[in-house]
């Protein structure tokens, strides 16, 4: 077997591990092995590449390649290991963005390498698509990161004529591609690069913080497609397979995610969701009466319950209060009170994010109930404790047709006998929508930092 055949065979092995890995990632039991398997496949592919010959020569610049890898390794490992679990979505955005950037750079470099030899039109087209998609993914991910990290406002950024301007950017980029294909003018490539960069930013700006995870999934899919485009240019089946797998599964995953929020993908991308602060009643909101109580009141209320439902949201994670929450649940259980957690599919910042955060605090897996099950159990609960959640318990999603979140499935906290709502202030949640549940006569508001309040609650329940 020749060396090239052996390398291609190893690439085939790598591509197979990616397929098996993606399949494994869809099942809770095999997910971790799946990820490790893909990592092994990746190492095989990388090692094999070192032995590859290009036009009869071994790889040049092996030292530079290794140096680049070392730099990447030194930066990536600590970042990935040390970042707080709550900041996970941002990190995924960053790693996705650099992948898109790498794909764009590969396409540009390849273009500069081959354009002297007058490549076929379709080769140029693949290069240009790689540049366009990779760059959009890069700059889009950067903005997504900034929104999640709160370096800029999480609210949708809108301005008059935005949609039209974005359409012009998009069509302009396609026009440039045609121009390059027809004229073969390479300098226009840099214009395309710049325009793609702007397009990525303009595309992401109007998307609200709560929708950014869906967007990251979409950009993830874009990067996959950019990688597949580079695969065509470089003539690599491995890149085509891996890139297309991610591209196709990413688009499906994006749709599943927007479905979990009860909205269409188009609605997520183009509706500047959450830019209006209102439901119809917000004008009078500040004056309406709410019932607030002390942590001690809430503790007594829970002490007399026989079933308590805990509805956690992202605010819980921000306050780093998962562990105290578990402690509270254990206190309640010690008193013979049954406790379960009602987990909304998009609680946290990404689907499944809350499960990860609670698992980190050693909350038993079987106490976590998914949406439908939670809603039917809530009818028999005495107390629903809402911690750091807001939009996912907002009744406007089922009652108020004018509300931007209308149609999103919610956890019906108001089904419980009593609602205890831990809240920092009366400020609306991430999506910027007023929450009617706060004014429900069943609801007792306990103001304060989630961790603080929970600690007091633990003490109150203990003393009770």
């Amino acid at each position, binding site marked *: 077997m020749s060396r090239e055949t052996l390398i291609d065979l190893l690439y085939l092995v790598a591509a197979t591990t990616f397929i098996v*890995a*993606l*399949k494994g*990632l*869809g099942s*809770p*039991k095999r*997910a971790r092995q799946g*990820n490790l398997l*893909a990592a092994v496949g*990746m190492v095989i592919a*990388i090692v094999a590449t070192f032995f*590859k010959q290009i036009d009869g020569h071994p*790889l040049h*610049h*092996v030292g*530079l*390649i290794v140096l*680049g890898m070392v730099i*990447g*390794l030194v930066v*990536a*490992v600590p970042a*990935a*290991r040390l970042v707080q679990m709550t900041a*996970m*979505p941002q*990190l*995924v955005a960053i790693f*996705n963005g*650099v*992948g898109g950037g*790498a*794909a764009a750079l*590969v396409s540009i*470099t390849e273009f500069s*390498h081959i354009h002297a030899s007058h490549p*076929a039109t*379709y080769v140029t087209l693949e290069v240009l698509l790689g540049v366009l998609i990779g760059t959009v993914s890069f700059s889009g991910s950067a903005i997504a990161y900034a929104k999640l990290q709160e370096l800029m406002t999480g609210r949708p950024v809108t301005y008059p004529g935005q949609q039209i301007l974005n359409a012009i950017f998009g069509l302009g980029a396609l026009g440039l591609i045609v121009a390059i294909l027809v004229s073969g003018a390479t300098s226009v490539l840099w214009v395309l690069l710049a325009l793609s960069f702007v397009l990525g930013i303009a595309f992401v700006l109007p998307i609200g913080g709560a929708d950014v995870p869906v967007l990251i*999934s979409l950009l993830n899919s874009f990067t996959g497609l950019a990688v*597949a485009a580079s695969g065509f240019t470089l*003539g*690599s089946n*491995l890149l*085509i397979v891996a*890139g*297309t*797998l*991610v591209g*196709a*599964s990413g688009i*499906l*995953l994006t749709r*599943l995610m927007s479905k979990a929020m009860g909205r269409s993908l188009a609605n997520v991308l183009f509706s500047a969701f959450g830019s209006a602060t209102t439901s119809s009643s917000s004008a009078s909101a500040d004056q309406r009466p709410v019932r607030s109580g002390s942590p001690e009141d809430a503790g007594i209320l829970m002490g007399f319950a026989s079933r308590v439902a805990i509805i956690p949201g992202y605010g819980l994670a921000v306050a780093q209060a998962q562990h105290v929450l578990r402690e509270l649940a254990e206190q309640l259980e010690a008193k013979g009170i049954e406790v379960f957690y009602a*987990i909304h599919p998009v609680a946290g910042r*990404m689907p*499944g994010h809350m*499960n*990860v955060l609670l698992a980190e605090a050693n909350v038993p*897996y079987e106490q976590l109930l998914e949406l439908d099950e939670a809603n039917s159990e809530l009818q028999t609960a005495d107390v629903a404790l809402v911690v750091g959640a807001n939009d996912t318990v907002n009744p406007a999603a089922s009652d108020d047709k004018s509300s931007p979140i209308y149609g999103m499935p919610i956890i019906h906290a108001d089904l419980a006998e009593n609602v205890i709502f831990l809240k920092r202030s009366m400020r609306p949640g991430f999506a910027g929508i007023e929450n009617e549940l706060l004014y429900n006569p069943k609801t007792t508001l306990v103001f304060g930092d989630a961790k603080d309040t929970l600690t007091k609650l633990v003490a109150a329940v203990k003393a009770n």
Partner: protein
Amino acid sequence: MGNVLLQYATVLMLSIFVGIEIIAKVPSILHTPLMSGSNAIHGVILVGSMLVLGSATTNLEEVLGFLAVILATLNVVGGFVVTDRMLEMFKAKPAKAAKKDEVAS
């Protein structure tokens, strides 16, 4: 349009269907790890980055290729490590999970 292109197009089409098929039924709690895992897999662009840097002939190509290798390594390594960290949380409850399955069945 040569046979090679047709062969690549075949691979592309098949991969699209495989990609859609394998994640059709994923529970929502695994959406985030799945996104992160597939994010690591497109880091395979590192192979492409190695090839362009390995065949670079001008300074511009060297600089661009070198940058591509760094970015792609970040993507691969970061992607896999983050995903593993997320999935670490799902382990260590095999007994309880099994019990739940029994109850369900």
